[in-house]
């Protein structure tokens, strides 16, 4: 046994050699935005402060699950990016902590409103409006009319051409469901979802998958956040972005400090830095077309112009709460997803 123990110890020491012991300050950073944006934020923060950043990228749902699983022994320090609902839910469950950043006076009102609705446990870093995009080649090939409103998607000629994510697994799709309820009222909103269900070819698991499938020509119309659709169009895919005529809901990408963070000082430094013009301008380098929360930050020319889109007065507090969420999802599960297609 001794020899075996020695072998084991030997190979463990080999691991040690690869993990260089670092004496610098560090930060464990959970990121729920797109990979390259996450990477860029991490590297730029390292350059700006000399703090070592450990970054994990997971979707906001996965990150929320992880933070909740780790709540008795938090491993992460700061959680940046991803749709606001899980951040609000984390705040509601006490998984994140209150922090008043000195940068707040530079931010748009919607970013502050997001913070205030959660007892300042989270803050808005970017926003994006919901909409859809369609593959122009496929629309032409199938002789379909170009849709421009939400209600257009209910037309029978789009049967089998529409894709959205499953609201149970995707924050984007939940935002869609909650927006329809707010635009049309609860009863008509669910009627809309039922009508849509008949045309849906697949409920994907991830929120932006429908437009990616449309980009590759595997689907015709994808209901997603418009900035995701713009990104596909900019990458060279034949995608046209639509801001639906009835008006639409939106998300506020958020940031929170995890309660019990082991590197609290560094987390606060990151938080302040992430709200600065300098950090928010980085989005343009990676084709992230969301609207930044700092008033001074640049917006892309390709970004959907928020002032031209009819935005509804989205009630984040109500529709972000876990009770309302559970109720709507259960109702959707029972009344919509069980219908034949």
């Amino acid at each position, binding site marked *: 046994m001794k020899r075996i123990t020695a072998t084991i110890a030997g190979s*463990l020491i080999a691991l040690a050699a690869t993990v260089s012991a670092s004496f610098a300050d560090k930060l464990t950073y959970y990121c729920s935005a797109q990979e390259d944006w996450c990477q860029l934020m991490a590297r730029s923060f390292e350059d700006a402060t000399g703090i070592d950043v450990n970054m994990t990228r997971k979707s906001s749902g996965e990150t929320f699950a992880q933070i909740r699983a780790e709540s008795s*022994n938090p491993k992460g320090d700061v959680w940046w990016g991803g749709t606001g*609902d899980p951040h609000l839910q984390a705040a509601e469950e006490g998984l994140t902590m209150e922090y008043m950043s000195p940068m707040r006076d530079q931010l748009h009102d919607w970013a502050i409103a997001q913070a205030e609705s959660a007892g300042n446990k989270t803050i808005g870093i970017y926003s994006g409006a919901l909409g859809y995009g369609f593959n122009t080649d496929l629309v032409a090939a199938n002789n379909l009319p170009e849709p421009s409103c939400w209600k257009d998607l209910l037309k029978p000629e789009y049967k089998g051409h529409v894709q959205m994510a499953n609201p149970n697994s995707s924050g984007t799709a939940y935002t869609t469901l909650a927006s329809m309820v707010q635009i049309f009222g609860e009863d008509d909103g669910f009627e809309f979802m039922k009508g849509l269900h008949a045309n849906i070819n697949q409920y994907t698991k991830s929120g932006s998958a429908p437009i990616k499938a449309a980009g590759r020509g595997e689907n015709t119309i994808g209901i997603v956040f418009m900035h995701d659709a713009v990104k596909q169009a900019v*990458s060279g895919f034949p995608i046209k972005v639509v801001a639906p005529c009835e008006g639409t809901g939106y998300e506020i990408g958020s940031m929170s400090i995890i309660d019990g963070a082991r590197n609290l000082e560094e987390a606060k430094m990151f938080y302040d830095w992430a709200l600065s013009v300098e950090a928010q301008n980085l989005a343009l380098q990676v084709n992230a077309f969301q609207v930044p929360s700092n008033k001074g930050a640049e917006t892309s020319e390709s970004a959907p112009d928020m002032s031209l889109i009819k935005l509804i007065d989205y009630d984040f507090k109500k529709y972000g709460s876990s009770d309302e969420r559970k109720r709507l999802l259960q109702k959707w599960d029972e009344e919509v997803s069980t219908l034949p297609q």
Partner: protein
Amino acid sequence: MTPAKATQTPPVLIFWIVAGWVGFVLCPWYGVEDGFFSFEWLVDGYPFEEDYSPAAFLVGQGEKLWLAPLLIPLLLPLLALGREKSDPTYFRILTVAGALGFGWLIIQGFSIGIRGFNFQWMNAAFGALGDRQFGMGYGAMICASAFLFLFTQGIAARGAVNGDVFVVGAIGGVVTIVTAFVFFPIANMLFSAFVTDDGAYSISAFVGKFFDDRLWGIGCFFGTRCGAALNSLVLAIAVGFITTVLGLAFALVVTRSGFRWKRLLRALTVLPIITPPFVIGLALILLFGLSGSVTVFIADLLGTQPTRWLYGMPGVLIAQTLAFTPIAFLVLIGVVEGVSPSMEEAAQTLRANRWQTFRTVSLPLMRPGLANAFLLGFIESMADFGNPLVLGGNFDVLSTEIFFAIVGAQYDQGRAAVLAMVLLFFTLSAFFAQRAWLGKKSYTTVSGKGDAGVHPLMPNGLAIPAMIVALSWAIFTATVYGMIVYGSVVELWGVNNSITFKHYVTAFSIRIEEEGIRWTGAAWDSFWTTITIAAIAAPLTGAVGLVTAYLLTRQSFAGKSAFEFGTMLSFAIPGTVIGVSYILAFNVPPIEITGTGIILVVSFIFRNMPVGVRAGIASMSQLDKSLDESSLTLGANSWQTFRRVILPLLRPAILAALVYSFVRAMTAISAVIFLVSAEYDMATSYIIGRVENNDYGLAIAYSTTLIFVMLSAVALMQLIVGRTQIGRRMTQSRTNV
């Protein structure tokens, strides 16, 4: 084995007594937060700083007093020094000390956690603790091993397994780690199936989730959707059946036909092992998706609209058949070759024609192989995660449902646990069925004697269809893999098909600077992590596997069959289940390793251990037991025999197990996706990220690179192992080859 002096203390005993004290007095008791291998603590207030303090210093300063009782089992073995092994007091002292120490470590570890007492009734009984403890570190680990091996020495002294200290210690060690890293997390997770929303245990919580329509619904017969359990079951049976038929066709063509390119067909067997997940799925989309080249071509030809037929059961079925047919082939080729030609010749001498011979003699003798291939296909399909994720469409299967129950917006741990139980039930049933089937009948036709016959060729009525099936499937496989390589060098597949190497550049660019090479490519981080973790896990997997195989083939002891079952069990546990259970079990003390590289290494060891065990068993059963006996008769103990006689003869098996577990660790995804962290991101989870981001070019380029890396690893192994075998054959008497 009589010692020179009757009262001489065995050095092993002294070693473990000293180790126990070192663990208690010198090493930091709790896990060091900066990581297992950061030694900053040595200069940072050790030994008095509470975070790095050894247990003795903690107790000495009046803290963590629950560690104080450990002194008793540490002092106790000192009384055994100088006593004879045959003295009953000797074994009593050691068993009691070991059991007490180990037991107390576990009890205190589970009772006192980050928030004081872990159980309500303890707060009620003893009052709030007002103190807490984190995960175990070096000190606790060393102490635990010391107690364990003191205990096994005690048992050995009492006469278990002929008083063999090494064998008893090895059994104890394997049982402990398998319990800690297989049974404990699984049991822990299954319990969470009974937890209600407010944290109480209730059977109705389980029943409600178990009889969910999303699990067992039969809606697909009425126009809506079927439950995930039903989907998984149907899919797995279909995949098992198809892969077995295809595998048999391949095996027959290779062994019983005049086909010229047999070696090429054999090379196919290596494919599923070295293919990263998702790649097959992606290639299928690019061929048969709505805008896939084949779909569009055929739609144009027939003048119809292309459809999304691929998404759902058809796509998953094709992808899994592609992936798992080679496994069936691998199993069946051995069986088909193993059927003794003498039997078939006997049948032919008795005037059976080729068809009758095949149907009444060869085929029945292949039955265990067919069953085995079917069950392997069944289990692999059940556990598969990557293909349903990419191609599933609205076709939900258990493995992906488990994933989304945990990571989805609902975050329903209980549901994940229930789904995992159903999945586990299916795979375990298959596992038991396989063992039951193969255990009872004897199909052995290869005896030690020379069997110089030649297999008869297949009857023509069989040869032609088998050849057509095998060839067309081989061509299809080759096309799919060709598409993979092609996909990695086009700009934007389907949109812009110009040839470019930019994906490789993005992933693997390097820059040479004054300080040396800078790995600037996006993939390097995860690539090196993957190589490192796989390289560390492989020898450990091999070691655990071989020791276990040695115990199973060479020793007999009480509870051996339960032991065997336990070590093979992790084969039947799907990766998703392992991943979920690890994150639940090892995020809290006493074993707190989530977010580290260690958890990845550990998960690979126990995922791949059955492979090491089986490789070991297979080659050890070929070594005559008389070799061990002569070594033992000449005065070596069992450890020396294992080390000097058996291990050198097993070199090829060891090498094979090493390469296999290395490669498996590089392509694993289902468990890994739960366990990766900021510091330790693996190649496969990085690739998923790219796939999610529509960055197919980079994902496929990275996968292609991995395929070639693994291919060279396998080729290297073939080269070395091949030589060793030839060397042995030359020295032995020639049998039929």
